[in-house]
């Protein structure tokens, strides 16, 4: 956090000065570790084992927060009789589908009990063997301190110290917060890493309370916003799922499946959110008769994530590619494939401040040097469109705590530079103009799309007008055209339009609340009058959980929101995240649904049962509870299960994306080490915003690799000399930093050397500082829930000296692969144990079949 979010770290420093303990778990000793009370060296990619061990420790040592867990989580819920655990199935849950690697979650459901108002069978003593609590306990029963040590490489005494610290620092009086960044997300099980942390925090009663929770330390100014208002294939704004062909053919199908009315919580109002969105997009063309234009929306037929799209480029089935303030030639996994993929496009538009490597790969990329691509043979047209930066346009960023902050425009963009807003507005105007007379039904959605935003004298559309549309407004009645105040005013009948329901209220009363700027020193620590947080300017989510069953704060120290007996309302320092007038004693009534069905002790109001989920009956594609599997290509054989890797991981099969053998398989010794990638304080992501800036470039001017003294001795690496690092995908060179900050760990009976490399450098001639890109070494093995690649624990080898130049580089990598006996199918076995081999064995790779990376024409 001190490395990548230094200014956020001021609050940690302050907490520390007031006596808080800071523990940093990382494969590397970083600037954060330097500030921590304790640094725990972990083997990269084994966080579920550590967190699972902590869960076990907390349960077995009775450190869990009984009242909280019993009433605010689903601990007491009983799970279907058909449910089988990984303990029973050698690492699989019941419902595994060997063809897709996914699960049918039918057996993960709660047992029904018609006598309960919410229909769920429960055992409030938590003793029932099929209660979530007991299932959880059994699931992690083998995650003992010794086992944790064997998997993660963490010394038992370090683990116990950490466990005691966390356990004792949680309860009524105290809370523990966890913060993570890409170290948890960029794994083939990243979602489950975070789930494990969530389970632990629920057990300790740290959710919905001040000083608790899990902080996603997001790395980009509005990466939160770009999920809220998503430019992501699988989502519509406000986390409404994008319609899927076959499942969501009509609006009714969509609503019944995605946001069913018969569940508890606020998602059951999803029809209002969806219809308002359609109204915002298609305006008067969106009527009840045409399902509010639902049919105008395209449909998904599977994953269309960035890596799947890349593979489609090789089929020549993607013509045009917009790259907007992004540098996939450096920043995306398997850089070589990224660049080769782009060489198969007909055209691409790169919008950026600088001539980043994604704009120049066709003449300066590494494949030109190796001869794999020839500039004269590349058909791709490239448009470089200069972009306006944050000072040159107005608009909002949503930061890591969901705070939507408005930026005022300071100056006009120079030269041809334009904002994304202006570029896309202009593109939209041109498209509509060209299609205005079309009678082709395909063009109807574009014709219907509302696109009338006021523009200023420079042609820049008003961001505030767009924000107002995002907020939502009335379409009919006396308030027509006026902004809504909150999402409860969204209606499913077309009388409201709104682009993103969770942002409703940001423009309440016609005031841009994102621009609120009452100085922090003039308000309390919640600072509600500084910008605006979704939802409803609420700063801590699920904050009903900060009060006990009776609605009183768990403790004076930790009070946030409570039930005011006299006024009969929820009140407190934050905007209560609960139906404001619902007393804590309320019980769920039969035949209620939606928000009305929430009981007084259902703090988790977006969940279909109002409870925090220790066990996820739905929503996760790779299991209801996190389970430790080894990362792809791990040198360690999974000590916990015969199943080596996550059976649900998404594999991309291609000659350009081959994997190293794992564990003790033959050839694994060719790529014996594990590398992990990271950000440096001095740079940003793929370098587009830092390697072109003199003041930042000089601070970290060269690509480097961090190795332990032990590995340096073993591999003959010279301090500050060059080293070549190779994976089955490529080879790069870097300056060597030999440091005690890196330490080998012993896991699975093996010494594992971990190597660290920053991910900022890329090959080109335009930036002030350049270097080989570590992402060229990454494979594309994806998390099955969010399709993020595994980048934090990857197999490699390291040797002294610079890498080969020219075509020899390709041959060098090929030879290494050959030496390791790697084929396109290496590492593709879904199941690695011989249980019921006949039915379970999956030998063929899944979905995407081998597109040979074409080069050039």
């Amino acid at each position, binding site marked *: 956090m001190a490395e990548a979010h230094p200014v956020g770290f001021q609050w940690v420093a302050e907490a520390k000065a007031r006596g808080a303990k800071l523990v940093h778990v990382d494969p590397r000793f970083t600037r954060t570790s330097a500030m921590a009370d304790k640094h725990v060296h972990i083997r990269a990619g084994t966080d579920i084992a550590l967190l699972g061990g902590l869960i076990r420790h907390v349960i077995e040592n009775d450190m869990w927060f009984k009242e909280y867990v019993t009433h605010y989580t689903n601990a007491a819920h009983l799970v279907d009789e058909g449910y089988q655990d990984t303990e029973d199935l050698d690492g699989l849950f019941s419902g595994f589908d060997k063809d897709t690697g996914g699960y049918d979650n039918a057996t993960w459901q709660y047992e029904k009990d018609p006598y309960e108002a919410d229909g769920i069978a429960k055992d409030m003593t938590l003793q029932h063997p099929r209660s979530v609590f007991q299932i959880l306990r059994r699931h992690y029963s083998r995650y003992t301190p010794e086992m944790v040590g064997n998997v993660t490489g963490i010394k038992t005494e370090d683990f116990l110290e950490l466990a005691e610290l966390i356990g004792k620092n949680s309860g009524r009086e105290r809370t523990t917060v966890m913060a993570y960044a890409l170290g948890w997300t960029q794994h083939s099980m990243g979602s489950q890493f975070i789930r494990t942390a969530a389970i632990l925090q629920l057990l300790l009663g740290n959710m919905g309370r001040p000083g608790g929770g899990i902080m996603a330390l997001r790395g980009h100014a509005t990466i939160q916003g770009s999920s809220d208002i998503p430019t992501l294939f699988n989502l519509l704004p406000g986390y409404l799922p994008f319609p899927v062909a076959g499942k969501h053919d009509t609006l009714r199908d969509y609503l019944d499946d995605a946001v069913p009315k018969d569940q508890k919580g606020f998602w059951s109002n999803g029809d209002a959110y969806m219809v308002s969105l359609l109204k915002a997009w298609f305006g008067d063309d969106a009527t009840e008769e045409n399902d509010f234009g639902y049919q105008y929306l395209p449909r998904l037929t599977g994953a269309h994530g960035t890596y799947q799209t890349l593979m489609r480029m090789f089929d020549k089935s993607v013509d045009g590619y917009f790259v907007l303030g992004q540098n996939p030639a450096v920043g995306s996994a398997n850089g070589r494939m990224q660049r080769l993929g782009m060489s198969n496009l007909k055209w691409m538009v790169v919008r950026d401040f600088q001539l980043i490597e994604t704009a120049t790969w066709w003449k300066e990329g590494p494949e030109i040097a190796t001869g794999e691509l020839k500039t004269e043979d590349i058909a791709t047209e490239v448009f470089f469109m200069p972009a306006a930066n944050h000072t040159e346009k107005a608009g909002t960023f949503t930061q890591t705590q969901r705070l939507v902050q408005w930026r005022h425009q300071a100056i006009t963009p120079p030269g041809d530079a334009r904002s994304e807003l202006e570029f896309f507005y202009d593109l939209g105007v041109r498209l509509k103009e060209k299609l205005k007379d079309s009678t082709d039904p395909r063009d109807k959605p574009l014709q219907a799309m509302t696109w009338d935003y006021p523009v200023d004298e420079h042609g820049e559309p008003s961001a505030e007008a767009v924000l107002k549309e995002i907020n939502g407004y009335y379409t009919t009645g006396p308030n027509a055209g006026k902004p809504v105040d909150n999402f409860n005013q969204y209606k499913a009948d077309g009388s409201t339009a709104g682009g993103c329901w969770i942002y409703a209220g940001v423009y309440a009363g016609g005031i841009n609340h994102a621009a609120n700027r009452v100085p922090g020193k003039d308000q309390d620590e919640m600072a509600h009058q500084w910008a605006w947080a979704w939802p409803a300017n609420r700063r801590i989510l699920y904050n009903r959980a900060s009060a006990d069953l009776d609605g009183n704060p768990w403790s004076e120290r930790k009070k946030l929101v409570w039930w005011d007996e006299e006024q009969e309302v929820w009140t407190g320092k934050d905007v209560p995240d609960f139906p404001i007038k619902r007393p804590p004693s309320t019980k769920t009534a039969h035949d209620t649904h939606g928000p009305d069905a929430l009981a007084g002790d259902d703090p988790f109001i977006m969940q279909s049962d109002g409870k925090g989920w220790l066990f996820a009956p739905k929503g996760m594609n790779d299991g209801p509870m996190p389970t430790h599997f080894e990362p792809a290509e791990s040198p360690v054989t999974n000590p916990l299960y015969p199943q080596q890797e996550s059976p649900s991981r998404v594999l991309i099969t291609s000659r350009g994306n081959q994997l190293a053998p794992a564990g003790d398989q033959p050839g694994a010794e060719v790529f014996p080490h594990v590398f992990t990638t990271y950000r440096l304080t001095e740079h940003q992501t793929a370098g587009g915003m830092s390697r072109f800036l003199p003041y930042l470039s000089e601070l970290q001017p060269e690509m480097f690799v961090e190795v332990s*003294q032990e590995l*340096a001795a073993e591999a003959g690496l*010279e*301090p*500050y*000399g*060059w080293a070549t690092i190779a994976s089955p995908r490529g080879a790069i060179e870097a300056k060597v930093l*030999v*440091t*005690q900050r890196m330490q080998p760990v012993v896991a699975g009976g093996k010494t594992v050397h971990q190597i660290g490399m920053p991910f900022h450098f890329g090959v080109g001639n335009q930036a002030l500082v350049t270097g080989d890109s570590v992402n060229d070494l990454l494979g594309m093995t994806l998390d099955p829930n969010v399709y993020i690649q595994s980048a934090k624990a990857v197999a490699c080898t390291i*040797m*002294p*000296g*610079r*890498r*080969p*130049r*020219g075509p*020899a*580089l390709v*041959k*060098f990598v090929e*030879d*290494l692969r050959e030496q390791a006996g790697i084929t396109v199918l290496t590492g593709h076995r879904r199941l690695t144990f011989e249980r019921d081999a006949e039915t379970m064995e999956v030998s063929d790779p899944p979905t995407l079949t081998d597109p040979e990376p074409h080069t050039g024409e």
Partner: protein
Amino acid sequence: MTLSEFDAYRPENEPRRKRRRNRPPGKRRGGGNGDGAREMPMVEDVEFADSYYGRPIVKAPPWDDKISAYLFLGGVAGGSAMLAVGADRIGFDKLRRNTRLTALGATIGGTVFLILDLGRPERFHHMLRTFKPASPMNMGTWILSSFGMGAGVVAAIEVDQLTGQKIPLGVLRKVVYAFEKPAALLAAVMGAPLASYTGALLADTSVPTWNGGKDNLSYLFVSSAAMASSGFALITTPTSQTRPARTFATLGAVAELFFSEKLTADMHPVEAEPLQTGRPARKLRWAQALTIAGGVGAALLSRNRIAAIASGTALATASMLTRSAIMEAGINSTKDPRHVVEPQRDRLAARRAKGIVDDSITTVG
């Protein structure tokens, strides 16, 4: 490298600096110095754990032999002015003329070198913006200026006479001639500090070898000035009029030999080291040899014009080499932090041993 078949395609490893080889990590020496100074060679020979990657603690001033030349010429000018007054007194007109012209020439030359060494030469006159006793450089500039005025007046008269009063002085001629005696005296009187202040100029710094020479540098520099100025006189003036210069030269040479020994003897050994090693040491050895040769020559052989010229050249060269050696040794002494740290640690320890414990920059309360 197991994959040696590809080594042919791999670029040569850049030659790594020696010091990085076979050294346990964590005890590395640093590379490079501060801003803009990274071309400086690293001090290779000393393993010195308690430093920041072996980087310099104090910085060398941006001075080179232009400043050595300034020091040298300042000495020549000062000494020459003294010889001129004496020569005038005893009626050695050629000696007077030559030393007066040398004095002005050396002043102009020295000033040019000084100006060239400035980062902003056009602001040279800012040196006279203030009168600042705490700054030897400032004092020196005042000295140089007043000396220059005196030396200028008398040299102008000499030139005027040489050219048969062709210099277009007009009505000023009278004034100038009227000031001849005071101007000559001014130059002689200011010539002494002009030659000696440079000792304080170098000593009044944090450069270890210079600061370590604070007790002797001025003495050494006047000796050197005497030697160099009389050397010039020996070169320029017929032997009939050089006797005083020979005496002056001999005195200077003897003193130079004495004080250059004393200089290092009085220093902390680590401060003296840069004078005793490398190029400065070689320069000093040459200077010593030339001083002896020139001194002996001046004392004994200088009735012969050739021998006189040779002795004079030897003495002047010796003086220049001494200045240059001290300049370079000072700059070298900043490169290795050991030259800073060890004398400081020792003096701190010495004070503590004496019971003085309240003057450390490091404290715990």
